[in-house]
């Protein structure tokens, strides 16, 4: 029996609490005897702390302690080195958090942080990725475990022999995740147990990290993550705030609240690496690709190797007999880059989908048609058929909805007063994966049900979606279902990331609910509660290794001021094939949010690094521009009715990332169509297009 809760546009369960300000975030819980931590960033890029003078800070009213490598509680080594905080005097990058001041008020902690005197022995540094950097190397694999390079056929020969060729290099700057809520934690110790309220994307993995760092059994650590004000990947694992708060709380033996500042979000929590990407495409005269090569360069820190999987997107997107992808990395004196919404796919698709647009121009073919012509039912990388691939359907439906058929392919051919107007398209794809999860379902004598799973709602609507899934799996109206998420005391569940959350969690929820129904035989318990649990490790692990992807097509229309070069978006439209959509309201938010973030990447965002200081100087929201509402004049997202039986019990593919993939290319391609000028380094700001009427 299904009640069809899935597919309905329920408002978020916690919507009222959020809009009335009563939903509690990590540092908003009232705690007796709480103190406040303020993190101190390093003032040098690379070197060694030779002395920490805490006298003045400690003399400042309200300051309780200055925790640094010389006095901090010891952490177990061996876990991710980025988390081994306050353990050694080494400084790896400017802004690395090297001390925490704890005080009785936030203001006192901030003032204390200003008064800590740290002397450094600083060395020379290298902080800028260049294509001829002497330290470029080939990593063993790229994030998370893809092969670094791939080769099929003979790219060089195929490329040389082709009648049509495109060879272009694209550059993207550092992008910073900038969730609205910073990384923030309230940490308390009691009887050797650690309780944290923390802003993250997966409390189970944060608990595991804390247990390992503090050498505690996992049962002695509890991580509560009820509401999260965004993460975009940067909260996908334990980060500095939670470790520093726990260290500080242990040191002062009092609860500590610690939130990073906006400035501290530019670095210590990860960011999207700058990339330099060379794409070469070859085709025959009717647009059929014969050779594809994507060479990507990115950076990591000296602490850890994080190799963005930039060119992996290209391995499975379009078919050609000769294909090559490579990744090269430089370890710089910078913070470690990390996940940011669609790592790899987002920057990679910008390059490939831009190059496809350049190829369309070179062949003299419509860019929608070019993509459809190079569509493939078989994954070029794995050699197996895709479980479902509706790229062409997305392109066709998008073209129809957008009004693409009327488009004059000639660039720089439309004018609206002072504006040059143009439109662009891009394809997009994102892997549809799932990870093992566990959940429990309980039937109560009052006819209600309670489903428990340590899923995380980072603002996406995950809590509501799982509640809908549970109701259908139980065969009851959702009003009878209560759902608990966001607490590591609940059954273990994977991170909200990789567009895998709903797929993974709903799998366990459905299995738990099915198990419960099996126990109940469709009855209702008369006296005691009846519970059933599920762990999908075996089932997920036993899934055949098939190419599973979500697809999309983004369309953008821009206008560019012919003299000043200002770029504005007239409209943007995306059509997606992402399996089953659980909740149209929250799904639409995810999709247009991703598209907006892609627009932001194309036109606005850029981490500006000053090589002399080795850090990003525009580290606030006044100078690091993120697309605002006024920049989004019209945006629409649609999805196809897609049923793919090879995915997971809920039939979902994940929608958190597909929206951003391709969006920047669609906007950049529209700028080319408007102006006839191809800007290959993002963001496309007016200084790159000023006097565009004289540029082409």
């Amino acid at each position, binding site marked *: 029996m299904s009640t069809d809760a899935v597919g309905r546009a329920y408002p978020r369960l916690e919507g009222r609490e959020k809009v009335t300000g009563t939903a509690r975030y990590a540092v908003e819980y009232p705690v007796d005897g709480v103190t406040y931590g303020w993190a101190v*960033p390093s*003032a040098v890029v690379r070197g060694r702390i030779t002395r920490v003078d805490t006298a003045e800070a400690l003399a*400042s*009213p*309200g300051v309780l302690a200055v925790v640094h490598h010389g006095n901090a509680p010891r952490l177990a080594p061996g876990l991710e080195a980025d988390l081994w905080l306050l353990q050694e005097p080494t400084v790896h990058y400017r802004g690395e958090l090297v001390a925490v001041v704890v*005080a009785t*008020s936030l*203001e*006192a902690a*901030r*003032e204390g942080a*200003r008064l800590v005197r740290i002397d450094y022995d600083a060395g020379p540094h290298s902080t800028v990725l260049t294509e001829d950097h002497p330290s470029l190397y080939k990593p063993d694999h790229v994030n998370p475990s893809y092969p670094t390079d791939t080769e099929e056929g003979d790219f060089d020969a195929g490329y040389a022999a082709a009648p049509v060729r495109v060879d272009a290099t694209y550059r993207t700057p550092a992008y910073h995740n900038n969730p609205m809520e910073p990384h923030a934690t309230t940490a308390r110790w009691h009887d050797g147990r650690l309780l944290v309220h923390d802003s993250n994307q997966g409390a189970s993995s944060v608990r595991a990290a804390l247990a390992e760092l503090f050498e505690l059994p996992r049962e002695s650590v509890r991580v509560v993550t009820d509401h999260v004000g965004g993460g975009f990947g940067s909260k996908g694992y334990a980060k500095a705030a939670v470790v520093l708060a726990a260290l500080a709380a242990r040191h002062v033996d009092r609860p500590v609240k610690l939130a990073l500042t906006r*400035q501290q979000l530019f670095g210590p929590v990860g960011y999207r690496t700058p990339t330099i990407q060379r794409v070469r495409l070859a085709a025959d005269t009717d647009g059929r690709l014969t050779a594809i090569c994507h060479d990507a360069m990115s950076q990591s820190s000296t602490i850890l190797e994080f190799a963005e999987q930039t060119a992996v997107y290209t391995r499975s997107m379009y078919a050609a007999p000769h294909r090559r992808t490579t990744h090269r990395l430089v370890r710089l004196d910078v913070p470690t880059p990390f996940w940011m919404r669609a790592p790899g796919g987002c920057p990679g698709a910008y390059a490939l989908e831009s190059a496809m647009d350049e190829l369309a121009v070179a062949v003299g073919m419509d860019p929608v048609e070019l993509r459809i012509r190079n569509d493939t039912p078989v994954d070029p990388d794995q050699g197996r058929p895709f479980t479902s691939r509706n790229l062409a359907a997305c392109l066709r439906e998008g073209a129809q909805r957008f009004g693409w058929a009327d488009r004059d392919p000639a660039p720089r051919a439309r004018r609206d007063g*002072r504006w040059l107007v143009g439109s662009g398209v891009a394809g997009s794809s994102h892997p549809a994966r799932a990870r093992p999860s566990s959940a429990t379902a309980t039937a109560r004598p009052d006819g209600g049900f309670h489903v428990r799973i340590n899923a995380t709602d980072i603002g996406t609507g995950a809590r509501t979606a799982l509640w809908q899934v549970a109701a259908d799996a139980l065969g009851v109206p959702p009003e009878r279902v209560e759902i608990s998420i966001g607490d590591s005391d609940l059954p273990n569940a994977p991170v909200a990331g990789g567009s895998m959350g709903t797929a993974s969690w709903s799998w366990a929820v459905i299995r738990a609910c099915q198990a419960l129904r099996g126990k109940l035989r469709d009855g209702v318990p008369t006296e005691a509660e009846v519970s059933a649990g599920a762990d999908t490790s075996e089932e997920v692990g036993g899934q055949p290794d098939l190419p599973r992807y979500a697809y999309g097509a983004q369309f953008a229309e821009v206008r560019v001021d012919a*003299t*000043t*070069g*200002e770029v*504005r978006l007239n409209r943007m439209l995306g059509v997606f094939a992402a399996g089953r959509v659980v909740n149209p309201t929250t799904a639409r938010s995810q999709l247009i949010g991703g598209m907006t973030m892609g627009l932001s990447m194309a*036109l*606005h965002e850029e981490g*500006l690094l*000053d090589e*002399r*200081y080795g850090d990003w*100087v*525009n*580290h*606030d929201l*006044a*100078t690091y*521009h993120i*697309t*605002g*509402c*006024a*920049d989004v004049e019209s945006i629409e997202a649609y999805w196809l009715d897609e049923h793919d039986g090879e995915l997971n019990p809920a039939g979902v593919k994940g929608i958190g990332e597909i929206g951003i993939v391709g969006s920047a290319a669609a906007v950049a391609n529209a700028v080319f169509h408007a102006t006839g000028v191809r800007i290959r380094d993002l963001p496309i*700001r*007016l*200084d790159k297009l*000023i*006097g565009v009427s004289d540029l082409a």
Partner: protein
Amino acid sequence: MRPFRYHRPTEVAEAVAVLGAEPQAAYLAGGTNLVDLMKLGVQRPDVLVDVTRLPLDTVEELPDGGLRIGATVRNSDLAAHPVVRRDYPVLARALLAAASGQLRNLATTGGNLLQRTRCVYFQDTGKACNKRDPGSGCAALHGQNRDLAVLDWSEQCVATHPSDLAVALAALDAVVEVHDTDGARDVPLAALHRSPGTHPERETTLAHGALITAVRLPALPAARRSAYLKVRDRASFAFAAGSVAAVLDLHGGVVRDVRLAYGAVAHRPWRAYRAEEELRGRPFSAELAAAAADAELTEARPLRHNGFKLPLTRSITVRVLTELASS
């Protein structure tokens, strides 16, 4: 915490007396800039004198046709004032092009004129800045300087003044009414802000303790045909990449009078006197407007990342004047 004392006087004389006696005191109005800078450690006053209870929050029409704007009139209220909208559209448009609705509801007329530069090096106590820390050097000169000055900068400072309002007021020949311990006096807006020179930490000609009490706009019938054009990196809530305030008085196609001021190019709102000279008395054309802008910018010295400001300023000059000419 770093304690500071807080006063909220109700009389101008009291405010001036309190502040004048405290070398490290600052006036607090809307707080939209000062509070941020205090959090960043860029400004560290011992005493805050809150001026929002002073009787300075009215807009008054003057007998000569001018307008007197109290220093604590909020930006939102000023932008919505019917006389401002009718007689000085350049002012209303400049106000509405600035910041966000929430900030405009707090920010005041006087405070807006005194806001500090948004140069990222000034705002970061970990970086060299002569304006924040005299003698420490100017990191912006050879740093990320896309947003900074092209005119009138010095080796010591390349900051720009961030205000939109001030640019419109410069074009309107506004007069700033100031109170200090010696009493009241008038300061022409053009004489309020300083060039950076060797003392970029001195941003205005006001002595310590001086309080802006009002801004007076002279009667200027020509200002009914006026406009403010701001170009920025996103559609809203961004400081100007370039801006121009213009008043144009055409008679039979000939420029009888013109007022032109630029934002985002210098340490102060930049009244474009040379451009005005080029325009005045000549038959208006887009070519003339371009030549006038070029004349103004002949002494411009772009930095590594901001050369675009020259063609940008030129093109917005042409656009705003052409639009005014045809309106």
